[in-house]
């Protein structure tokens, strides 16, 4: 039997506002400046979303899915989201920007718990650029804060970005060098 191809937006019933427009390519190393800031506001986290994450990850720790155990045994005042759900959202602010440029490393530390109803704003800032072997590396300080401005996740990521092929640019500042084939 032949598999019917259905677009991912239909397959996952993606709400229109969440559809991501494809890009031709990700950013180049020379275009990313230290200090560049990225931000992504996520809608409030729901109990159903936490349950879905428990299913997707296989992490059915009662702290995330059983209100009674989370409150009475865990003494956490009720269920809370997996730290990795927030990390997934922080990852999104990075991959939305990087597109097809790969991550080499990504870390987050969960600093306070995230409860149903909390909405996270994920952020990333370029803190360093350097070359290592063949790779051009860009470091981000990244994380998330809740609707009260409290940091819920903080971490770091390193991505590998290509540099465009070298060329003689129109804005050459010393055109006489070209005439004398100094750069040839």
């Amino acid at each position, binding site marked *: 039997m032949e598999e019917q191809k259905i*677009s*991912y*937006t239909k*397959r*996952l019933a*993606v709400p229109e506002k*969440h*559809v*991501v427009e*494809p890009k031709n*390519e*990700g950013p180049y190393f020379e275009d990313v400046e230290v200090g560049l800031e990225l931000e992504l506001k*996520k*809608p409030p986290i729901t109990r159903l*979303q936490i349950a*879905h*994450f428990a*299913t*997707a*990850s*296989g*992490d*059915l*720790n*009662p*702290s995330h899915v059983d209100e009674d*155990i*989370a409150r009475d*045994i*865990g*003494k*956490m005042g009720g269920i809370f989201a*997996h*730290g*990795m*759900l927030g*990390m*997934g*959202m922080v*990852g*999104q602010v*990075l*991959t*939305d920007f990087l*597109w*097809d*440029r*790969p*991550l*080499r*490393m*990504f*870390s*987050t*530390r*969960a600093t306070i*718990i995230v409860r149903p109803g909390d909405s996270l704003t994920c952020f990333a800032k370029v803190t360093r650029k350097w070359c290592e072997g063949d790779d051009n590396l860009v470091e981000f300080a990244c994380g998330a804060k809740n609707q009260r401005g409290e940091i819920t996740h903080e*971490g770091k990521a390193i991505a590998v970005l290509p540099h465009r092929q070298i060329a003689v640019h129109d804005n050459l500042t010393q055109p006489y060098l070209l005439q004398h084939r100094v750069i040839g």
Partner: protein
Amino acid sequence: MALKQSGLGAETPWTKSVVMQRQIDMLCNCVEDYNPLFLDEEIAEASANKGVVAPPTFINCFRDYKTMLLISELGVDMPMLLHGEQVIHYYKPVRPGDTVWQRIKIVEMGRKKSKTYKEMDYFVVLITMKNDAGEKLVEATQFFFVRDKQ
């Protein structure tokens, strides 16, 4: 320390599975991250990725025997568990259809001071994912705290 110290060095067996697009769909759905590079063959094929790749936190969806490891080898009381830090290193992309091997090992444990809970047990697990050729794809270190029972 409430954790069983004999748990240090314990590890799950290497488990083999085939990455399914459906697993990636589920993760993207609950994170509400609909990046087509994770979901759409045609768009992903046209990118530098040359095909669909899994999102950066996909390794969290592989946890065969993890609960058994924590409950039986460390004696973790699951409702007292808190997740601290996770560090993920990427070596090669993980794609739907890939056969992957994964193992989880307890690599460190002890007791730490905490601002909120005074003192807590902690342990660190190392999750390694390899391909069929034995090449490392992803490696994650996860740091967990276990609160004392009041």
